[in-house]
């Protein structure tokens, strides 16, 4: 279902436009950071550069000092990867769906059911319970 505008369009140009937009957007950020670095005052002191910790000396802060956090975050990230791949597989099927019915319907349902097995498993394993 293509409009009149799409017919005369050259796809490569559109990707070039995308890159232009990206560069302009990133450029604005860089210009702003530079402007602030040039224009702002620079009177840093040791105390001023301390990390925030309600007025105490920060203990064991800093990048790469082995701060530990719950494994739940790791699990959520893994589940996200699995289900996002599902979404990635679903998109082509959804776009071409009307040309493939009714066969595609059973295919889609089978796929969803297979994933639901995994979903029920993580539910029963209480991966999604947050204490």
């Amino acid at each position, binding site marked *: *279902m*293509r*409009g009149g*505008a*799409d017919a005369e369009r050259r796809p490569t*140009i*559109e*990707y070039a*436009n*995308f890159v*232009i*937009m*990206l560069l*302009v957007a*990133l450029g*604005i*950020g860089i210009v702003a*950071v530079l*402007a*602030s*670095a040039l*224009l*702002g005052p620079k*009177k*840093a002191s040791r105390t001023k*550069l*301390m*990390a*925030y*910790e309600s007025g105490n000396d920060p203990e064991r*802060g*800093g*990048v790469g*000092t082995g*701060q530990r*956090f719950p494994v*739940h*975050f790791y699990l*959520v990230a893994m589940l*996200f990867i699995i*289900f*996002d791949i599902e*979404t990635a597989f*679903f*998109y082509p099927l*959804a*776009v*071409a*769906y*009307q040309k493939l019915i*009714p066969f*595609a319907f059973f295919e*889609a*349902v089978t796929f*969803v059911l297979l994933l*639901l097995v995994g*979903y029920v498993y993580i539910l029963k394993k209480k991966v*999604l*319970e*947050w204490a």
Partner: protein
Amino acid sequence: MPDWLATLLISLLKAVLVVLGLLTTFAYMTLIERRLLGRMQLRPGPNRVGPMGLLQPAADAIKSIFKEDLTVTLADKLVYTLAPIVAIGMALTAFGGLPAGPAGSLFGENPWVYNLDTGILALLALTSMGVYGIFLGGWASGSKYPILGGLRSSAQMISYELGMGLSLLGLLMIVGTTSFHGIVGWQAQNGPMILFQSLGFVLFLISSFAETNRTPFDLPEAEQEIVAGYLTEYSAIKWALFQMAEYVNMITASAVMATLFFGGWKGPQFLNGLIPGISDWPLIWLIVKIAFFLFLFIWVRATLPRLRYDQLMRFGWKLVLPLALANTVMTAAFLAFRGSGGLWFLGVLSLAGVLALLVLSDRVRVLWNQSSIRPEGDIVRAGGD
């Protein structure tokens, strides 16, 4: 000047215009938000700097440029500087692909910067990249609250990204294209998608609230809980860039909802009977729809309390995700075996889905789950409600 160079220069001009337009809108959104929040709390809001506070955004911008740009000693300098640039870059880029009118309606040029056939996929990819900005910002600050905020934020955003991606599948099955132009064109012929995909729309709306870190899902920057989350160690323009990214994401989300579910730049067709051609007025309809959704964002902020972290995750994984899948399967079944019923039947099914969402949500479920006293074993270290 060769032809391709002229085309690229025009695109560059349009990109700069879009970016400047978005930044101005962001600046005035902060003002409008503060004024509206003031109205909702029976106070005037900022009204001193300029007439009706109109110069307040300019004052804020100048102040944040002239503030001292601190980098905490423990921070990772490079990543700390890059994170806000990534956040704002992805947020601004995402807006450029949305059509604001028919081809050639902007002084003979096309009213969009880029027009990919994979419009929705590009948009989802860019929003995913936005997570990097926030998480890296939190990590690179080398301090405790930012790390907490960054972790919460990444977990929340990726969880709701699933809901976002899956809630669009029903729409894609009906329309059969991922390009925004195709979707707007389909809606011009068959009526706005909200009629047939109300469940998909509601799920998308909830997900976009979570994606843009707005209340009730603004845990990453929950001031009362973890100072300012990933923003704690940021000052001056870098802080402003993160705020900018949040508001630009909000504007983009509003524009996407308007484009996908409310007919985009096309106005309601029946108005054509009153004033011929009114539904094609360039830009006006899109701006009206965006303004409506922005108002909704602010309204919700003034109304709802923030969710707790476990509630947020439960809602995302146990309600939004299964219902989005259900919506997909429902739409698929309808399209495969549509009997005599037209698309309106799908609309009724969708409304039933919205009802199911309401009934299954935590706020309503307690009405018949009377056991409000939890057994002793359940009271865990997280503390009370």
